[in-house]
């Protein structure tokens, strides 16, 4: 059954929602364990269902292909790490509620639908399920002013973006003569010159799709939401939804409107350049580590755009490779805030990083790897991610764009170096050893190992992402 993972997940969301009232106020261990168990089961089911062919079901509305398989596996693994990292933080702040697990899983369901959607309605359905869960999660700490404000902003802007996307879809529906299936749309737009209406549809759809990625100039919500949300939620928002958003972008632009590449490529070029420049420059001015990482996200999604706009198989797999690398790196990056946070204290400022090398050399080394990986220095995963997208754009003759990209990444290197400076070159303010839960330190060590391991031998992952696009 092609949608077995989705069905299992939907069932488990209901189960977790139902058992929650019967759990004692003090802990949600059962919800936590059930969520993790669900992810393990989903992983196994998806692995068993994997196949190199494209499998259509429900009259072609749902598509399962190597790309969706790989993305779903990454979603499960990413979410599992997010849950493990967040557990202690949620408990300390009294927001270890059943809703967190329920919303995290229903958001995952939305992402899975998005990844496998081959139909405009299904795409919208998945997007809304994912987004609404995320809006609610942002407001999880409901008596916190900052979080409520962030949730409100996120909701209003997200709804606007959804509206734009929907409007673009309706135009597309009209112009192509009543098609909702992406394969039909692809056929309809490949014949005949693109009309103004079609161009307008492209613009609206691209905007709606890149909003969730946080590509400039549609990144305005990102800093406030990421900063305002509890860090455990930020960790969720900043990582796995990017995979789903990339899937949506690829499904819409490549599977659906591949024939209109001349129309969407320039938009992506401009937004990618804006993202890389703005993200890297503005991050320099931040004194909050959390905000700095947020702007670094803006620059990373700009690099992801480079792969997409190349319009080749190598480009798409580079974009996916970059996104997966980004998920690992930002999991580690935001995870560092959880590592340093204590009961009643959020370690969100760069100053909180001071002297980490004296307090925990291993975690400091992981931090160093993560930062250099984000900067794109060799021996780390981030270098290969950057190389992949640069190779993709140079391969289609956009060498000038690659030059622009590397200049912005040199600018960006500065703030990563500064973060390393706080960890390695400064004296600690608080000399006490870092005593977070072993689970947090364990997950962070895993991200460090992935960044270093794949930095030395990336062909395992590059092979998978190439297969995802039939390479």
């Amino acid at each position: 059954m092609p949608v077995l993972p989705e069905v299992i997940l939907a069932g488990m969301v209901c189960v977790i929602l139902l058992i929650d009232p019967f759990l004692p106020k003090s802990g949600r261990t059962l919800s936590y364990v059930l969520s993790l168990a669900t992810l393990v089961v989903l992983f196994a089911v998806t692995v068993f269902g994997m196949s190199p062919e494209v499998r259509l079901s429900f009259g072609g509305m749902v598509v399962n292909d190597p790309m969706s398989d790989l993305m779903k596996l990454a979603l499960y693994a990413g979410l599992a790490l997010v849950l493990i990292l967040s557990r202690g933080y949620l408990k300390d702040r009294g927001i270890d509620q059943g809703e967190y697990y329920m919303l995290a899983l229903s958001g995952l369901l939305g992402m899975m639908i998005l990844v496998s959607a081959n139909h405009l309605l299904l795409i919208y359905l998945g997007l809304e399920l994912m987004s609404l869960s995320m809006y609610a999660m942002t407001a999880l700490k409901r008596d916190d002013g900052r979080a409520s404000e962030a949730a409100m902003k996120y909701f209003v802007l997200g709804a606007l973006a959804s509206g734009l996307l929907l409007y673009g879809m309706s135009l597309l529906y009209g112009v192509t003569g009543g098609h909702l299936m992406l394969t039909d749309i692809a056929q309809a737009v490949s014949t005949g010159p693109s009309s103004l209406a079609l161009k307008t549809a492209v613009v609206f759809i691209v905007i709606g799709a890149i909003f969730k990625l946080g590509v400039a100039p549609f990144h305005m919500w990102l800093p406030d939401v990421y900063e305002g949300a509890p860090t455990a939620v930020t960790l969720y928002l900043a990582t796995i939804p990017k995979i789903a958003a990339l899937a949506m972008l690829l499904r819409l632009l490549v599977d659906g409107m591949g024939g209109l590449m001349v129309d969407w490529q320039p938009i992506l070029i401009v937004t990618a350049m804006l993202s890389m420049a703005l993200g890297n420059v503005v991050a320099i001015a931040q004194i909050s580590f959390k905000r700095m990482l947020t702007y670094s996200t803006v620059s990373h999604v700009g690099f992801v755009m480079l792969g997409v706009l190349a319009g080749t198989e190598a480009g798409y797999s580079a974009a996916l490779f970059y996104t997966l690398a980004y998920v690992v790196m930002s999991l580690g990056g935001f995870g560092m805030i959880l590592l340093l946070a204590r009961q009643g204290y959020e370690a969100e400022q760069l100053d909180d990083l001071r002297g980490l090398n004296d307090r925990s050399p291993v975690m400091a080394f992981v931090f160093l790897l993560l930062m250099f990986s984000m900067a794109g220095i060799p021996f780390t995963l981030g270098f290969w991610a950057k190389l992949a997208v640069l190779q993709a754009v140079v391969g289609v003759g956009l060498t000038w764009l690659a030059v622009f990209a590397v200049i912005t990444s040199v600018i960006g290197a500065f703030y990563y170096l500064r973060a390393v400076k706080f960890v390695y070159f400064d004296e600690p303010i608080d000399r006490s050893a870092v005593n977070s839960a072993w689970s947090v330190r364990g997950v962070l060590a895993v991200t460090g190992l992935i960044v270093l391991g794949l930095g030395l031998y990336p062909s395992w992952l590059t092979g998978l992402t190439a297969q995802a696009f039939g390479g």
Partner: protein
Amino acid sequence: MPNFSWPMLSLIVWLPILAGVLVMAFGSRRPNAARWFALISAVLVLLLSLALLPSFDLHTYAMQFVERAAWIPQFGIHYHLGVDGISLPLIILTAFTTVIVIISAWEVIQEKPHQYLAAFLIMEGMMNGTFAALDAIVFYFFFEGMLIPMFVVIGIWGGPRRVYATIKFFLYTFLGSVFMLIALIYMYFKGGSFSILHMQQLPLTMTEQVLIFLAFLIAFAVKIPMWPVHTWLPDAHVEAPTGGSVILAAIMLKIGGYGFLRFSLPITPDASSLLDGLMIALSLVAIVYIGFVALVQGDMKKLVAYSSISHMGFVTLGLFIIFLIAADPINMNHSGVRLALEGSMVQMISHGLISAAMFLSIGVLYDRLHSREISTYGGVVNTMPWFGAMVMVFAMANVGLPGTSGFVGEFMVILAAFKANFWIAFAAALTLIIGAAYTLWMVKRVIFGEVVNAAVSTLKDLNAREAWMLGSLVFLIILMGVWPNPLLDLMHATIEHLAQQALTSKL
């Protein structure tokens, strides 16, 4: 083709990196274990690199001890290593310098010694990888990767302005190298391979060559460093701990020169020939102007740093003067071209030894009085006679006195320059005077003269560790000065081939 049953080059590259990680794992509680372990691994790597010599074939320019395996097939990247006559001496120099650096840190570095030693071992592996790489991306991988340990070394164990210096160092080098990366990717799509040897045969139009040449120039000019992108070097040197300065001056600067030899000259010969005027001009500015700048420094490390820039000017002069020599019909047999290229290579190796020796000597003084100012010292020879004698040898080598290694390279380059143009040779030869002025004046003020500072009269002469460290350098500097032939034989075939490549048009 000589062959070992195990991958020697991979061992030389990865063994120090692995050892570095292990040293880091020793933790700060067992510093002596970390020191001994680091020393033993460094010596082992030096022995391994020396073990290549007997089976190295002197009569071929072909790459030897080649290893090749698919690394990232999706990107067309191979793990491809090999050495020839220009990379092997540099690998041995790297291995030797690392041993010296570890000895120099022995009891001097008390703060987190395990991390310090680990950084240098990891750096050694990366530098060896840079010299042994035959795949352009493998080269870039190591070229860029070594910035990480150096950044940490300057930042943790450096002087008061270490953060400024280390970030400046990192960003300068990073900015330089990213353009090279784009050029490499461009050539990959042009020729279908990242192999450096393949790129050397790739036909390129003049416009492409000029752009690629400029991309390489930014990368390597920053690394060497050439005027006017040299400003990171004095800062980095002054703030870096002794070991960091030694590695920077002895090896990292050489990677820039090596890059010109390996990439610029063979891959873009026509652009190199077209822009040789610019390169020669920049080299002469470095030799003469930076020499004068060195003269007025009050900080010993800064003085030696500027002297390094000036000496590296000889290397770039030797590399790019060849087009002028070849253009002159008198020099039909190209012996002048070989003279210039070999002179540059000898100058690189020799400067590696001399600059390491100079920085180590300054380190010896700094460990005792914690000052790098020339004015602090004076009359050091009264209390440290052995030290004074050794510094005198290093100073003479820095000046280029016959009988020391400094003479050989400079003399060869100046001789070659005479074949091209009298005035260029004249300007380059000025350095013999300026170099003598700033070096000897510093020695005079530091080593000789009256004891003005009471602290100087309490100085203790070299201990056994320091004596071995500096003594081995004295030995090598004089050995290379009186008997440079083994080194020249090593690189002869390769340089011959390189000269041919550089002088054959690709258009």
